């Protein structure tokens, strides 16, 4: 299975991406020399703690911030030329954010929220993909009911809101979905539903995921390969099982041993 994955071409490729904020002495290197590629059909995990640069990287990939050096190829074509973001195929790349509470406009009805990404598409594609039939099939698939469409986000629980956000990301039939801490704001039992759903959707729609998280056990459960970020740099990269079984870097080891575990009681790795 692994050998098969490797032959597939990368959907997105980051080459020595850098991001600096500020100038002169107040310069901060948020991301330095980040290079990795994500192959079609895999789930690539990006893990790091606050300030590791993983969110900055997500912003660069989604077009919210421009890199100060390096390049990003999506489907072989550069995403950024200078400060200009090239939306090569609108809707081909989508994102699900961490906090569904704040990623859904409180004044919009669920139907308008889910259909919103279609407004970036040419009108022909918008009509096709926004048909009532497709919309209803999609919301049924993510576990919502037709009468939910006319409601507002505050009427839903956290888990349901994240389902709305997932439906919104899938309405354009993307090939690549960035999941930015999609379950960090959710309860454990709700997280289980959402993770299951994401896995199923990936299989059914042949999606490629970039899964950003600070939670090691979620990354282990969800991803094929992963990169560990620390202070703006990628310190370790490999298959999930390799990294969990044989972490090479000291930081990865610390990260793994800090994770409170249910059954093994206290090892003392920090000393």
């Amino acid at each position, binding site marked *: 299975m692994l050998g098969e994955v490797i032959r597939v071409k990368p959907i997105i490729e980051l080459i020595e991406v850098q991001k600096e904020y500020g100038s002169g002495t107040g310069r901060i290197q948020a991301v330095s020399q980040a290079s990795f590629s994500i192959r079609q059909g895999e789930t690539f995990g990006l893990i790091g703690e606050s300030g590791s640069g993983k969110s900055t990287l997500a912003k660069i990939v989604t*077009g*919210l911030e421009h890199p100060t050096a390096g390049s990003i190829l999506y489907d072989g074509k550069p995403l950024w030329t200078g400060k200009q973001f090239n939306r090569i195929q609108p*809707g081909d790349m989508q994102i699900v954010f961490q906090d569904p509470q704040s990623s859904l406009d409180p004044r919009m009805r669920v139907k308008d929220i889910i259909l919103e990404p279609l407004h970036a598409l040419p009108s022909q594609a918008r009509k096709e993909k926004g048909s009532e039939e497709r919309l209803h099939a999609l919301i049924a698939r993510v576990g919502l009911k037709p009468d939910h469409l006319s409601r507002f986000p505050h009427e839903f629980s956290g888990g349901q809101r994240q389902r709305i956000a997932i439906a919104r990301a899938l309405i354009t039939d993307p090939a690549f979905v960035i999941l930015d801490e999609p379950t960090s704001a959710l309860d454990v039992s709700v997280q289980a539903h959402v993770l299951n759903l994401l896995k199923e959707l990936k299989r059914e729609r042949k999606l490629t995921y970039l899964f950003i998280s600070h939670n090691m056990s979620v990354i282990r459960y969800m991803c094929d390969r992963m990169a560990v970020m620390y202070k703006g740099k990628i310190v370790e990269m490999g298959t999930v099982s390799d990294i969990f079984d044989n972490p090479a870097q000291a930081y990865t080891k610390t990260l793994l041993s800090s994770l409170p575990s249910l059954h093994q009681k206290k090892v003392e790795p920090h000393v």
Partner: protein
Amino acid sequence: MSAEVHTSTVTRTVNPFWYTCRKNPLMLAGIVVLVIILLLSLFAPLISSYEPTKINIKDRFAPPSAEHWFGTDEVGRDIFTRILYGARLSLGVGVAVVLGAGLIGTVIGSISGYFGGRIDQIIMRLMDMILAFPSLVLAMAVAATLGPNLQNAMLAIAIIKIPVYVRLARAETLSLREKLYVKAAVTFGIKPWRIITRHIIPNAISPVIIQVTLDIGDAILLVATLGFLGLGAQPPTPEWGAMISVGWKHLLDYWWYPTFPGFALFLASCAFNLIGDGVRDILDPKANR
């Protein structure tokens, strides 16, 4: 609070409107007064048998009586009737001016805040220029330059009101721009104009509505002030400010002439201010608690 409740199965047991009115009786009083004024002015032809502009010299300066409740003016027009018809004008103009200024100001302010940079600089310096003048002086200058009539008075008041809304909407936009749902829309590739109209303005509108309700009272006073100064509605239009303007010269001899229009003005602007305060309490629960 921390007891989170799933609100998907909401059953309303208390009507929110009455709930807030009970908590805020002053707002209710404002609404009642306003509704009475509105009904009176709307049904003015049924309530009064006089015409607001019909001159009747032999009845001039009649004191309040059963025939003329608020007396008559220097050419014998019934003051009560003129106040009723004047309410249409004063209230209508006040509301229209503030709504117009609110709408234009919000659009300009959200554009300024959303794009930032040079556009923002130019717009805000322009607004600073308007704000640098005392508002009444500027309104008088505009009205006098364009010619003394009601339309120009409205325009003048709108111009001096716009910067308030621009600042308000801009400040709101600056914080909304950082909201995740706005960022989400940007990543979807939604065009700025659509983001402004669909996300920014609907979410920035609460403080604007509060300001609008608080400003209507003020605008009514400003319309009257310009009328009083001869820069607004021209005679024989039954406008409260213009009525007071003529009437105050007769205050010592015929007290009723300026007193009743003045009282109407006071009631109307008071009602709007009470409603404005109430609306602020509802839409912005953080303030004033």
